[in-house]
């Protein structure tokens, strides 16, 4: 039986929009490849958030119109993008110095699992992976001032992605501060996962039922928002 039947999970687009709402003006933000890239579509142009792409683009803008493509300008996902007014280019060592030196306010990553202590596993699903591809994930996870994760709450087969301890190979230790899933927003605290917000129709008991790690109720830290 689907315990989530009564609740209305967010679509991927709604998840990206929900996360985007919490990014304040003036932040420097790197969006990981995959679902996080869509977050940029939901930050209105008048709110000046500066997006960084690991391949040396600071001030990345949205996808170009088909007749306006600059074929030398791509993002980390190797899709065509634009440069906003005020944007700049840099080489790879500078681009990663910016990441590793703690200059980014925020990095948004996808993940396979996040543990209650903030550990993240997002680059490989097995120690026996034939040729795992890490890219910039470990640099971003270890280097950004804050890491937020955008992911489905459960795997396709219904296993919780919020776990006591990650079973997949780790990307970084203890770095995740907040998680946006299709059914909840949670903070990673010294006492584990704390629920900030739940999808419409969802209650705490059901959320706990579909989450492997123990949750702190929204009532214990100021009520639902």
């Amino acid at each position: 039986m689907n315990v989530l039947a009564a609740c209305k999970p967010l679509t991927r687009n709604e998840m990206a929009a929900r996360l985007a709402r919490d990014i304040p003006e003036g932040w420097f933000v790197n969006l990981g490849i995959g679902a996080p890239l869509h977050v940029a579509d939901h930050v209105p142009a008048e709110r000046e958030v500066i997006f960084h792409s690991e391949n040396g683009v600071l001030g990345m803008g949205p996808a170009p119109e088909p007749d306006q493509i600059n074929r030398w300008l791509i993002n980390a996902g190797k899709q065509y993008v634009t440069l906003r007014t005020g944007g700049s280019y840099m080489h790879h060592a500078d681009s990663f110095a910016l990441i590793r030196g703690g200059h980014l306010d925020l990095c948004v990553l996808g993940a396979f699992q996040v543990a209650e202590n903030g550990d993240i596993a997002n680059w490989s699903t097995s120690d026996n992976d034939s040729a795992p591809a890490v890219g910039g994930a470990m640099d971003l996870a270890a280097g950004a001032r804050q890491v937020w994760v955008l992911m489905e709450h459960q795997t396709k087969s219904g296993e919780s992605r919020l776990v006591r301890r990650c079973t997949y190979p780790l990307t970084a230790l203890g770095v995740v501060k907040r998680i946006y899933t299709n059914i909840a927003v949670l903070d990673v605290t010294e006492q584990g996962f704390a629920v900030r917000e739940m999808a419409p129709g969802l209650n705490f008991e059901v959320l706990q039922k579909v989450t492997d790690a123990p949750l702190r109720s929204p009532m214990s830290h100021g009520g639902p928002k």
Partner: protein
Amino acid sequence: MIDKIVPSMVEAMAGIRDGSVVLLGGFGSIGQPNALINGLIEHGAKELTVVSNNAGVGRIGLARLLALGRVRKIICSFPRTADPVVFEELYRAGKIELEIVPQGTLAERLRAASAGIPAFFTATAVGTNLAAGKEQREIAGRTYLLEEALAGDVALIEAWEADRWGNLTYRSSARNFNPVMAAAAKLTVAQAQHIVDLGALDPEKIATPGIYVNRVLHVPYGEPTVT
């Protein structure tokens, strides 16, 4: 008169030996020196160690170099770009060695080599499988890994404009690894879309000064395609 512009691919590749460590610029196909990679294939050097962010796409360029069995080992961050068929086949068959390096650690290892820094500490990859066998040290309460510099015997890079002193500019995000690799190799060969007179490049826009560049080949190929 200094003139680093070479008239042919044969001269661009001259002296590249078997067993070389070859740095290949580019992020995916953008900024990747495909003409020089084809030149390296014609040149015939083998037993190479290739350092590149990705491990080749489809069956052209780096993928073709791999398919011909010229590469003993690849050092990269992301072998799984769309369609890495050749690499995956070789890797599964045990015919190529792979060293996975986080992208920022890869860039910094190259930069360190260019700056005479033999090794450095970084927080990236602490507590992960990629920390295996590496020295760790706690500095001011945080744990770091020791990573060694990575120098090339040869760097093959792509630039936008070049002059006869080897001063280079780049185009948008095609800059990526190219300036870092140019500075980290003993022999740096650049392919450039435009050759301009000495003095024509705005000194404020030269991203790689000619001190890092040994040879320049004019390769006006037009626009890249994303792969």
